[in-house]
């Protein structure tokens, strides 16, 4: 019997996986233990091995494409077998993909065994159990050893108290009765309960209750961002260094550049160049803590945070230390456009060594950024505002003048960067911006 291969769930939070490379093509022989394919999770690339011998009959997912976990991506079986029959059996037999879930929790260093075996009757899961597995992110394989309490180890729908009408409606609307809160006698599920469960979200809550505008699954980009930032904030001790920069000369310089050249130079481009220069001067900032090793990079790869449709995307300008301002401006413009359109290739938003988050155009006085791991520092740039500042006049006296001031705040990972280094970096960066010609020198 041909077997359907599904996208394995390699971690608690994995909703989908990206197929990086097929090691076998359709028609190739497959031996148990051979690597079948590699997938990308949000963390890493993982090879997946075959668990049985056979022939690769059909490939359903191209390299670079994404698939939800537990959905079919290929069929392996005996030579000449019909892969479509196996797929039809998979779709028809497995009411929920969870039934077929024989995904194996990945260990970081061992290759994963491919979830080859798919049989609808393999795990006797009731709708309630399936729902629980979905909701709690339970690995279905871990249930394989469990003894069910119902007939032949399963739990039947009859164990759930529901009115005949509720039962029919639930069947029609494909609602898991076991997950419905019953309002009838002794918690019996009634028609209205099924209707409520089928309705998207309550229109109006009773007075005093929290009213819901909308709900959306926490997944995909939103989840990746959330988890990376939470991980960063809770593992890297963040410290912050703020200063105010007089942008009088900076703005004038940018104006001159734009008058002189054809390539439009944005504020971010100059900031990127300035950061590049500062990072070259203080390589301790351009570093990562990876596997108990502190790595300082020669490459200065600067990410520029861009607000996208689903959240933040950070396109990365690579090797800024080797590039001219015009090159950086051109490259970053393309990257930002791609990012906004959601067309960034994976390599274009990864591999950064430092990030600039510029919210200046949104008129913020000052803000604190969270480090984008495995980087060790991020620079938050705020709006330019006219302020009364004290300067030294030509006579050596103090004088209050109005100047366009801009706050910058550097966040660093205190595990590898000390306060003195961070403070010197910020001071140098400020000096560059207030004497902008030096950015290009």
């Amino acid at each position, binding site marked *: 019997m041909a077997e359907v291969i599904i996208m394995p769930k390699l971690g608690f939070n994995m909703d989908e996986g990206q197929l990086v490379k097929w090691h076998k093509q359709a028609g190739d022989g497959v031996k148990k233990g051979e690597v079948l394919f590699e997938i990308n999770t949000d963390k890493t690339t993982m090879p997946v091995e075959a668990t049985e011998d056979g022939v690769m009959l059909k490939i359903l997912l191209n390299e670079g494409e994404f698939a939800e976990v537990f959905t079919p991506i290929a069929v392996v079986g005996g030579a000449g077998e019909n892969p479509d029959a196996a797929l039809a059996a998979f779709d028809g037999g497995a009411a929920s993909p969870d039934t077929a879930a024989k995904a194996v929790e990945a260990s970081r260093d061992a290759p994963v065994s491919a979830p080859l075996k798919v049989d609808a009757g393999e795990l006797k899961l009731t709708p309630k159990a399936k729902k629980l597995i979905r909701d709690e992110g339970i690995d279905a394989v871990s249930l394989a050893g469990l003894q069910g309490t119902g007939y032949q180890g399963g739990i039947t729908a009859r164990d759930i108290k529901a009115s*005949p*009408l509720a039962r029919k409606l639930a069947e029609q609307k494909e609602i898991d009765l076991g997950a419905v809160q019953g309002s009838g006698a002794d918690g019996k599920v009634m028609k209205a309960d099924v209707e409520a469960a089928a309705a998207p979200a309550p229109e109006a809550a009773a007075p005093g209750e929290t009213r819901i505008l909308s709900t959306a699954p926490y997944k995909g980009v939103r989840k990746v961002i959330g988890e990376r930032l939470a991980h960063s904030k809770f593992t890297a001790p963040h410290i912050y260094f703020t200063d105010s920069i007089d942008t009088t000369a900076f703005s004038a310089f940018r104006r001159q550049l734009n008058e002189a050249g054809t390539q439009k130079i944005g504020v971010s481009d100059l900031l990127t160049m300035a950061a590049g220069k500062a990072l070259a001067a203080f390589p301790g900032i351009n570093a990562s803590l990876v596997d108990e090793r502190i790595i300082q990079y020669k490459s200065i790869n600067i990410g520029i945070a861009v607000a996208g449709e689903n959240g933040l995307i950070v396109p990365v300008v690579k090797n800024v230390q080797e590039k001219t301002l015009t090159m950086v401006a051109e490259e970053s413009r393309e990257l930002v456009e791609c990012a906004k359109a959601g067309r960034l290739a994976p390599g274009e938003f990864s591999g950064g060594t430092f990030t600039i988050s510029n919210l200046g155009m949104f008129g913020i006085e000052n803000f604190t950024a969270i480090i984008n791991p495995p980087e060790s520092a991020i620079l938050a740039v705020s709006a330019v505002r006219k302020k009364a500042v004290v300067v030294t006049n030509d006579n050596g006296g103090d004088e209050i003048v109005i100047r366009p001031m801009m706050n910058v705040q550097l966040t660093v990972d205190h595990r590898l960067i000390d306060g003195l280094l961070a403070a010197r970096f910020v001071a140098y960066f400020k000096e560059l911006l207030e004497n902008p010609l030096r950015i290009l020198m």
Partner: protein
Amino acid sequence: MSAYDYDIAVIGAGPGGYEAAIKAAQMGKKTCIIESAYFGGTCLNVGCIPTKTLIKTANVLEEVKNASQFAIRGVEAGQVSVDMKALQARKSTVVKTLVNGVKGLLRGNQVAVAEGRASFVDTHTVSVDGKNITAEFFIIATGSSVFMPPFIAREGDTNIITSTEALNLDHIPDSIAIIGGGVIGVEFAYLLNRLGSKVTVLELMDHILPMVDPEISEMAQTRMERDGITFRLGAKVGRVKDHTVFYELDGKEQEVTSQVVLMAVGRTPDTEGLNAEGIGIAFDRAAIRIDGYMRTNIPNIYAIGDVNGKVMLAHTASHEGMVAVNHICGHKEEMNYERIPSCIYLEPEIACIGLTEAQARERFGGSIKIGRFHMAANGKSLVEGDTGGMFKVIVDGNLGEILGVHLYGKHVTDMIGEISVAMAAEATAEEVIRAIHPHPTVNEALGEAFMAAWNGRAINSL
């Protein structure tokens, strides 16, 4: 110790109030009930029970007159008559027995009884004839009174009576005009026609008995017309002058003169002397405004039965009382007004629950299924000597949900409870069909009507 005299005080001992009080006591609440006049309320004293007692006599009279149909000899139809004084005495005995039963039930459940008219002092206090009673919760169950429409002018020496007086008639009027073709009007029309009055019913709508599917109410109307009752549908009564009712019909003013005029256009919530407005209880017109748990705008005060104006039926009031007491005791079960049975005591009887066909079509469109079964094909109806009835059931064509059931036949008022149970349990047409209905009964026609709806055909009809 509670700071109040009682946990729950119920105002009004009608079928809503007295059952709520008993339920409250059974739930362990220290309970008091306050009643000013009638234990048992309108239902026992001047409503359901006395009407049905009189109608029973009308039915017996009819059966006796038709005794020869059942092969009984020796009864001269022309010689049979009703002794109205004796009938009133029987009615009083029935009422008294039941009222005493209510008092006994209250006593037996340790419900304190205060006789007098309650008036709110504040949200936790009522004054009953000058004596204050305090309670943590109040349940208002003061019922309703006959609605005398202000838009019907009364001129001269009119002869208008209400249902209350109609129940106490010690002679049969030669003629009577009944304003209103609802349950009250139609039952009195049936009763007085049987007892010998010339009856004219004036109804504003284009059909009588609005809760009943018109297919059945028209059958009943035709039968009553055959028995001599005159129905004037679409009649807009403008005034009553002396003994004459003037009404507009087909664009012209018409009149009917009769010995008595019965005003039966409905009932209105009765909160007289209660001072409900005085303590800030909110109203919708004359009715006390409530939520799905019978709570008024004041959280410790509930209102059940006719006084909340929802559905003015004794069994509705009783169930609302259960909902209110349960809510006070922390059990939330919202009142469902979609499954309240109605019973109309003609002969044969009418009983219905849920939607009419037109209402069902409005809500569910074309996806409904209708099943009918005529009593002509029912053995027991033939035995009973009345095959003029019909059962009509309306189910949702998708799930088989029971949407409405309308019965017209012998003792169907005792049969509609089956559908009330089925609907409460959310049984579908399939469950009703699977249930075994006993033979020979009128009831077995119900299973047949559901088969006709769900399967497209019944077994015992073509």
